[in-house]
């Protein structure tokens, strides 16, 4: 019978306490890993989301607002550009492609965005992947037709051939229904980008929607831009942001999103701190659970000593027991972690259309269990030292 089988029998003997303590460690470990992975994954994923563009040109305002509005389909549009602005940028020698978008309408809260069919045919939203149709076909830019992201189609139960009336504004208000009727011609396959949460219609359709200002019929909300070379961005940045004062050139998209994360970094620091505290409390739980059972174990320890166990064997047994509780807890923590990640991943997907890789490996999955098990072993050292110093003879009573 080796040390580990003695430990397993001790754990079996105090099963309820073992299970409860291991569960608290599982929750703490799962929380710690999830916070870490969500932080890493969302930063990594969101700063990569650019649906194939390098920059966005829009009305003068915040670059972040421009990116959130035109790439992530969140936030309000900072304003409009006129046709001349669009014509100028699309013919600029540094620009490879420029796709205009117009926003301002919704269908039951899902954004309706006007654009050109080239967005779906010419643009790789991620390297080597263009948008593909799950069924149907692209809209005809001259007709009142729509292509719907798969997520929207599922949420609103939309099929190819269905018709709908757009609603004015970005927030759904049943009183603001437009008279125009659009027919769904295709459903886009999942791209795991914010594009999945959008109903796409011809640019012209949105510009000329009944109730919109006729004077702004040629205006667009933003231009999504692919540059010919990375250095082109500097030229346009200088031209629009430093020398000009009417438009904003948001470039590079990833850096702007990263800036958002750095602005809210205090928040994940708070979350991480909470996770560390939870982990510390759980490790203290191991200490308390074993320490509280020491009175009952006094006799067992004395018997082991009487049978020839060294003091250091007893010390090792208790520390190993604490570490084993930690290991059991951390094993279970992976289930907690993946459950949290699946839930959070679904929420983020529903809110933004962006799919986090919830099963991705992160270094935290290695160091968190190692740290947690070490903390538990450290917690076990306190009762272990008490056991180490315990007097055998007085615990083997009665004395004759």
């Amino acid at each position: 019978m080796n040390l580990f089988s003695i430990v397993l029998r001790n754990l079996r003997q105090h099963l309820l306490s073992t299970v409860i303590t291991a569960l608290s460690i599982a929750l703490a470990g799962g929380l710690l890993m999830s916070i870490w992975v969500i932080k890493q994954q969302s930063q990594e994923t969101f700063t990569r989301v650019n649906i194939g563009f390098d920059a966005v040109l829009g009305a003068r305002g915040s670059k972040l607002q421009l990116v959130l509005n035109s790439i992530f389909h969140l936030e309000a549009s900072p304003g409009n550009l006129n046709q001349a602005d669009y014509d100028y940028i699309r013919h600029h020698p540094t620009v490879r492609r420029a796709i205009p978008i117009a926003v301002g309408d919704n269908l039951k809260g899902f954004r309706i965005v006007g654009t050109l069919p080239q967005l779906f045919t010419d643009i790789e939203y991620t390297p080597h992947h263009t948008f593909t149709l799950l069924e149907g076909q692209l809209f005809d830019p001259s007709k009142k037709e729509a292509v719907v992201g798969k997520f929207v189609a599922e949420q609103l139960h939309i099929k190819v051939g269905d018709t709908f009336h757009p609603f004015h504004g970005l927030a759904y208000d049943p009183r603001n229904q437009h008279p125009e009727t659009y027919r769904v011609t295709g459903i886009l396959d999942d791209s795991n980008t914010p594009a999945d949460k959008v109903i796409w219609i011809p640019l012209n359709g949105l510009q000329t929607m009944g109730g919109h200002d006729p004077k702004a019929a040629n205006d667009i909300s933003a231009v999504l831009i692919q540059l010919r070379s990375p250095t082109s961005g500097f030229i346009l940045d200088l031209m629009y942001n430093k020398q000009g004062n009417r438009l904003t050139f948001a470039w590079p998209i990833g850096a702007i999103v990263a800036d958002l994360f750095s602005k809210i970094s205090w928040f994940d620091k708070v979350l991480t701190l909470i996770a560390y505290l939870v982990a510390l409390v759980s490790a203290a739980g191991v200490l308390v659970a074993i320490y509280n059972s020491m009175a009952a174990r006094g006799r067992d320890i004395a018997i082991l000593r009487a049978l020839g166990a060294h003091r250091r064997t007893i010390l090792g047994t208790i520390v190993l027991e604490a570490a084993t509780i930690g290991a059991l807890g951390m094993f279970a923590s992976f289930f907690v972690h993946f459950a949290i990640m699946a839930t959070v991943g679904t929420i983020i997907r529903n809110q933004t259309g962006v799919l986090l890789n919830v099963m991705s490996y992160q270094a935290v999955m290695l160091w968190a269990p190692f740290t947690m098990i070490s903390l538990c072993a450290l917690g076990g050292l306190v009762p272990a030292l008490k056991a180490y110093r315990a007097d055998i003879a007085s615990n083997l009573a009665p004395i004759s």
Partner: protein
Amino acid sequence: MALLTLNSLKKSFVTPTGERRMIVDIPHFSLDQGEQKALRGESGSGKTTFLHLIAGILSADAGSILIDNHDMATLAESKRDRLRAESLGYIFQTFNLLQGYTCLENVLLGMTFGAGTDKKRAIEVLERVGLGHRLHHYPRQISTGQQQRVAVARAIANRPKLILADEPTGNLDPINSHESLTLIRETCTETKAALLLVSHDPTVLSGFNQVKDFSDLNQAVKEHIK
């Protein structure tokens, strides 16, 4: 040939009032290999302390305890643990079985710190004490007499040279007491282990050819009586 020889063994404790009190003061005692000896003594006479000193559970203040040429009194604690695990078997009045372990596991545990576990041997000794059908029962699932038999099996499993028995029948009824004592003596004979038993029970002591009064042996008791 002497297996156990004690000379000038002394052990004292500090009482709650701060006074140092001599508990064991034995000028000489010996036990031959395979010999079975009983010591008669009343409760509180220091019998358990005496056995604890021999087993190395307590360290002596002075004197020597030679067991198979190893002086338990001067060995470092870890070596005393080793000697106890390898050469001694201890049968307690309260059996001291671990409640979370089955009968078989209790016996295996008794072997762990000595020569090492031998499942075949553990089953063999449990069968020898009549518990071959209770291998996987926990102590709470068997009778008091059976618990004592598990304790006997655990004590002899390692083939020790010396068995120490401290009031081994103190918690048993007369029938179980007799059976248990017979078992202890028979198994010691079979394994050629020497037996040193301490008891205050005349029935238990009557079975031994060699019975000594602990008070004759222990000068500290004489002092207290004076």
